[in-house]
């Protein structure tokens, strides 16, 4: 497996605050890799160092085999960056922004080519609009077009959907999936758990500048050792199921039961076979990435 990013023992402090604390991880070619964590976890600082716009205090970063601190311009030429803030030049129309950024990357881009790129992010109809006339979602898509202007091998998206409504967020997810499907590696930061679950092949959980865990979303949930919860309505007691090896606990409130289990299938089988409860009254709650985050960090993501 080819690694396109290798981060080794990265450290960065702002005065007394250690924003990144001994971070090490790798990103594989073609994957959507997410850095997930609360505000102040060090995600943006980490991304800035990898993008070559912020020098680390210690540690080493290689992007596409290039040492970022030694060859930052070459790295910048081969990556695309979308910042958290939209950062657009207010005096330029949408297509002009694309054309100008193309020239900054040495890409000759006339109006036609700029418009084609805008079409890829569904913004060709707004090519003549100034940034102030665009909605939040459209501005995000324009910044995504700017990140694609140099046909990058790796795309960095910093909180790409923050501030967007659910519809615009899902539309942007589709664009990101489409970009990844073309063989590009995507690295994104987010504090939306559902975004990480929906988009990312692997997720690094960050907290306090450290990497708490790194795995697939399902792997993180497994690693946290979290149980699924079966909600069931029953007229008879279900306490005898507590003796089953996969069942962790049973809570009862009147005729409503919550069964915490490590093996949903086995418990369900026992539940329907041994107690004869109505299957239509059963509701299964699988553990989420948020549950895993709480389990692994001891606190909620959106405290």
């Amino acid at each position, binding site marked *: *497996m*080819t*690694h*396109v990013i*290798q981060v080794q023992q990265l450290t960065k402090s702002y005065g007394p605050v250690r924003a990144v604390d001994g971070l090490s991880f790798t990103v594989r*070619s*073609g994957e959507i890799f997410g850095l997930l964590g609360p505000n102040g976890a060090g995600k*943006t*600082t980490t991304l*800035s160092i990898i*993008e070559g*716009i*912020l020098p680390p205090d210690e540690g080493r970063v*290689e992007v*596409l*085999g*290039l040492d970022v601190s030694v060859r930052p*311009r*070459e790295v*910048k*030429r081969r990556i695309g*960056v979308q*910042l*958290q*803030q*939209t*950062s*657009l*030049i*207010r*005096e*330029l129309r949408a297509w*002009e922004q694309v*054309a*100008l*950024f193309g*020239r*900054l*990357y*040495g*890409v000759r881009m006339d109006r036609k080519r700029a418009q084609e790129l805008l079409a890829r992010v569904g913004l060709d109809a707004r090519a003549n609009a100034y940034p102030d006339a665009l909605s939040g979602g459209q501005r995000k898509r324009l910044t995504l077009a*700017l990140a694609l202007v*140099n*046909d990058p*091998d790796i795309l960095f998206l910093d909180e790409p959907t923050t501030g967007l409504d659910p519809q615009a967020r899902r539309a942007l997810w589709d664009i990101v999936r489409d970009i990844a499907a073309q*063989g*590009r*590696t995507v690295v994104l930061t987010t504090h939306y758990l559902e975004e990480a679950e929906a988009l990312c092949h692997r997720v690094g959980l960050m907290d306090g500048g450290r990497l708490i865990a790194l795995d697939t979303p399902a792997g993180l949930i497994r690693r946290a050792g979290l149980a699924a919860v079966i909600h069931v309505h029953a007229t008879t007691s279900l306490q005898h199921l507590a003796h089953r090896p996969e069942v962790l606990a049973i809570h009862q409130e009147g005729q409503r039961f919550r069964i915490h289990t490590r093996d949903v299938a086995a418990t369900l089988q026992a539940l329907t076979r041994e107690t004869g409860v109505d299957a239509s009254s059963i509701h299964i709650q699988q553990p989420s990435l948020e549950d895993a985050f709480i389990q692994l960090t001891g606190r909620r993501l959106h405290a």
Partner: protein
Amino acid sequence: MNQATTLNPARRRAGLPSDWEAAAAFAGMMLRATLRDWRTLGILLFTPAIMLVVFRVTGSDDGFDLLAFVFPAIVAMSVFFAGAPFAVRIVGWREQDVFRRLACTPAPLGWVVAAYGVTFVLIALLQSGVILLAGRFLFGIAGSASGAAWAILPLLLGAVIFVAYGGLLAGWVRKAETLNLLYIFTLFPMMFGGEVFVPAGNAPGLWQTAASWLPPALMLRLLRPLLQEGQWPDDALLLLAALTAYALLLTLLAARRMAGLARHEPHAR
């Protein structure tokens, strides 16, 4: 370390843009954008245009042609104020994270900012030219055509000085309102002490001496004889040398400050 992936080998053969190419592309695009912003250009031209009208109406007195005296200063006004809109835009860039976004490209940020400054120099010269033509053809102000052509030199040096001055202020001040006030409150004493619009006879002697060696007075000491008589003053070389020194010093200071911003601003979060 594993080998890097190359998804688009054809593109890899394309070289990086040279610093000049990136800067020229940026300046060209921003110049076009500024020139089509008729409202802003109109506002910038409004003050010198209204001054032409006011001084024409107030006319001459006791053989002293007030309009002829102030006309070179009105021509230079666009240059005096060129640094303010540049500085305000730079402050806006800092607020809106544009610096950080530009720093993500392979183009050197210092060159890009300098290119942006050049667009304001060109706009100031264009505005001065418009006022010069309006004065000559609409208000009938007499003067030398060759002198007007030579006037481009002190105007150019002045534009570089004031745009660099604006850039320097923008490197330190974070609010547009504060920046505008600071620009005006430092420019006006220079102008009034340096006999730009009115004779400085009532100003304190020490201030007159100091102001006469500040950029507005230096420019006017060159522009008045050029625009009125079509001749360079006797001390033209000294005055041009002083303006060049200001231009170099302020550009150097602004560039150093901008370079500092380029290093620190992208990640001041």
